[in-house]
């Protein structure tokens, strides 16, 4: 299987603290990988490292065929990260933000309107400054930019938090369509229900590395037994 | 001499001596901080005789 994400013994030190401590991970096209783990386990850092926003201190890491240890910038624009921060300029409107992202990524600018409409950012809301928006509305703007950018690898960090059920459904169905077309999704979520976004695989992060990795059918069993799998159950 | 010359030499020698003393002190502190690290690295060794 062709690997879209390939992390081998990755250590990431950020602010003199080891956020990732020897993480091994592989993912191929069409996978929806649910990343679980306790607070501070390293889930967000893992996603940020895949996105190329954290410098890999040790180990080897390839994303979309690019060696991101040597060239951290070369895969970034093909990766979409929807996380706790939305990279928006507060003093620009929703439309201006989305347009800026499209221009910056050299994407087709005509996709902006349909992407915004699809998440319900139309009319007056589209021309409202981000600073006046609620957390959920901001997330919609970030999501619209992401949809219009059409990345190959989707990194969703608690994507459903603060979104209404209607927008969740838009997100899920869009992402599902991309996955069917070969995109890969890494999904961090604490919620038991992930809408119609059905993971094909579950990995558990603990202490900055992968401590459990199972296909979905096994995962249900694993979730029932509390025991974290230490160094076992590794599907690399 | 004239006071200025002495003052100049005193300033140079004084500051350099002061900075050297500071370096020696910091060196001692750094060495002390390093001892537990060394001990750990040389676990297989017999270790210090104390």
């Amino acid at each position: 299987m062709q690997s879209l994400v390939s992390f081998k013994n990755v250590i990431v030190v950020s602010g003199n603290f080891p956020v990732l401590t020897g993480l091994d991970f592989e993912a191929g096209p069409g996978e929806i990988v649910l990343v679980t783990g306790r607070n501070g386990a390293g889930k967000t850092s893992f996603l940020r490292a895949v996105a190329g926003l954290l410098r890999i201190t040790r180990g080897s890491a390839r994303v979309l065929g690019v060696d991101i240890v040597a060239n951290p910038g070369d895969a970034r624009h093909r990766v979409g990260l929807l996380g706790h921060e939305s990279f928006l300029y507060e003093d620009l409107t929703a439309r201006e933000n989305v347009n800026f992202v499209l221009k910056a990524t050299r994407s087709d600018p005509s996709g902006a309107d349909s992407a915004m409409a699809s998440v319900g950012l139309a009319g007056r809301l589209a021309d409202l400054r981000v600073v006046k928006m609620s957390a959920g509305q901001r997330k919609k703007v970030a999501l619209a930019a992401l949809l219009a950018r059409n990345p190959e690898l989707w990194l969703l960090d608690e994507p459903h938090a603060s979104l209404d059920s209607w927008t969740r459904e838009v997100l899920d169905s869009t992402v599902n369509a991309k996955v069917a077309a070969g995109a890969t999704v890494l999904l961090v979520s604490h919620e038991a229900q992930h809408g119609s976004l059905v993971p094909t695989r579950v990995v558990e992060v603990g202490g900055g590395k992968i401590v459990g990795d199972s296909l979905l059918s096994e995962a249900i069993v694993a979730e029932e037994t509390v025991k974290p799998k230490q160094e076992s159950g590794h599907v690399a | 001499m004239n006071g200025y010359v002495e003052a100049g030499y005193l300033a140079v020698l004084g500051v350099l001596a002061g900075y050297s003393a500071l370096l020696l002190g910091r060196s001692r502190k750094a060495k002390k901080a390093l001892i537990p690290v060394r001990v750990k690295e040389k676990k297989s060794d017999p270790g210090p005789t104390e």
Partner: protein
Amino acid sequence: MESNGYRWTRKLVGSLSLILVAATVVLGLWITPPDVVQGQLVRLIYVHPPVAWVAYLAYGVTSIASVLYLWKRTRNIKWDLLAASSAEVGVVFTGLTLVTGSIWGKPAWGVWWTWDARLTTTALLFVLYLGYLALRSVPADSHQRAVRSAIAGLIAFIDVPIVHQSVVWWRTLHQSATVLNPSLSPKIHGEMAMTLLLGFISFTFVYAWMLMHRYEIASMQQQVLDAELEQMIQERQREPELEFQRVHVKDGNDQINQPSKV
């Protein structure tokens, strides 16, 4: 830890610089004759220019080390430590340059400070590298700090000729020579020249010793940091295991499990 050879060299350089400085002081203060024009004051020439030279030498070393760190092929945290060490020693010597220049200036010019081009440049240099050290002293990721301070160090050094040129013009282009500015370089010859040369050599040795010592300290501190980091990595790797034990000892205790920073 640096090798025994390194420490041995450092001690040798240290002893030599003690002897050389002592010789310079004896020759400079008592053996050499007073100058025809400047009188006893000329004795400051055996310390002031050498100290100034060391300051520039130190910043040169900082710049070279910064380049070597920035260049990916030679990138090594040791260059960063060397750059930092040399800059710190350089600031000490720049301070001394200012103090000795001022002490010399008072009887020569009648004032503690004159807006002489060299003096002004040195003062700006002092502030520039204080800024560099301030940037370094801010707690940060060690790689990030190394890159940023290397760039700051390099830019500061490139700025020096521009600053100097502007100050030289400032003092010469628009003001006629009304400023009390007799040259600080009297005619020297014979044993005076020898003593001056000795001054340059001995303070360069002092610099070498200080740099070696300062670098060794930085290197030891870095080793402690590295060891702490290794330990933190190991502790963090054990987190799931500990978590598992805790869950089984006391169920439902769901606090955030961050290891304490050592």
